[in-house]
């Protein structure tokens, strides 16, 4: 039975529930795939889960990456550089 007035205060996990947070970014992480060793440190530390490792290669979801730079900081081989969005 459905009751049209019933509404519940829950949210379900989904992509971009807070909107396209990529527009907040003023520096972007750029991955040098030649240096990347596929260790997943960036994937592990990204607070917004915008880094995906597909077939051993790192991909950043720029729609939602806020450009915080944690990935560049934790990368053990300095494969990620933060570049200004205006460049």
């Amino acid at each position, binding site marked *: 039975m459905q009751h049209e*007035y*019933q509404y519940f*205060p829950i949210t379900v996990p989904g992509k971009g529930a807070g909107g396209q947070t990529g527009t907040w970014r003023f520096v972007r992480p750029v991955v040098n795939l030649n240096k990347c060793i596929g260790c997943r440190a960036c994937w592990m530390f990204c607070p917004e889960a915008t880094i995906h490792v597909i077939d051993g290669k790192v991909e950043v979801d720029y729609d939602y990456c806020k450009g915080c730079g944690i990935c560049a900081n934790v990368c053990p081989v300095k494969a990620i550089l933060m570049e200004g969005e205006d460049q």
Partner: protein
Amino acid sequence: MRKVMSANEAVANAVKLARVGVVGIYPITPQTTVIEKLAEMKAEGEIDADIVRVESEHAAMGVTLGAGAAGVRSFTATGSQGLLYMHEMVWWASGSRVPLVMMVGTRAVGAPWNIWNENTDFMSERDSGWIMAFASNPQEAFDLVLQGFRISEDERVFLPMMVGMDGFILTHMKTNVYLPSQEEVDAFLPPRRQPYVIDPEAPIGMGNIFPPVEYMKLRHSIHSAIQSAESVIKEIGKDYEKISPFNNYRTLNVKYRMEDADYALVLMGAWAGDAMEAIDELREKGINIGMLRIRYLRPWAESEIKELENVKGILVMDRATSLGRGGPLYLEVKATVRNQVKGVVTGLGGVLLNKEDFKRIILKFLKEAKEERSDGVEWYYPAEVEKVELRNPKDVE
């Protein structure tokens, strides 16, 4: 089974028969013996509920709500300062739409300390979005708590329910109580249903930030759910007759000698007993007065209260007050009917009223009603107001 027991024991038995899984408790005053009874039942292996002792009433509701959200039938009890300390979590429970039942043994609120009965603590939760019932005797305390689980878990409601009862004069009063068997209760109360459940396989966020329109939509849904609870309560009350000899749950509120009444007394709680005795004696003297006992504050059965428009005068007695304004029941009744309504605030902080007090209050009201000046709020207690000498800060030094 019939047995002599206090309202506290009756409530503990209702919790047992409802097969409650988690009881979150803070076992220090202001608490009632309902949780002691439950702990005793646990120690003797009569129930297998987890009794979780916590550091405050705030946490007691947290545990009860958490268990409810995880799909377990849960219960807690408190009153007075404890209920006030729980206040924030009371709102989280209704806002989360998680079914559960709480007993409130009402008591006065400090300052100053006063351990006696008064309903203001219960009334202060009026706007929190709970289903709110108030018992008048130990049997009703049992019935309302047991029905409460089913009302709360009904898909047309999905809200927590609190059952209030006058501290000491009801919670600790012993009378004959009828208990249905476990099989009968199992048939009456099906396994728990709820709108969502905490499940690691299907994660959800509870109480996350809701933008303005979504927040208001949720408030509106709670408002509608409380209103739709009125017919649910009647339906469940009728179904309750299958397992109980009591058939007075077909309406939310209870009438006494109202068929031919010219005047009506409105109140809720245990003192309805004294009021009925006073009414019987006044009836013998030819005074046609009846009583409407409010059993549900929320939902507020507007159509039942509106029937009061047929009488010549209405007297509302409150064991609670909204200071500077009047009793909450008085204000509710006044907002429902067009008649003149008189309010009497009395019984605060344990002030006892006997049958003679009721007769005195009623007779004064009747005199005023005949002169058509029976409105406003009167405070009734056995003392004169003394003049207090003020001290200025210099003297204090």
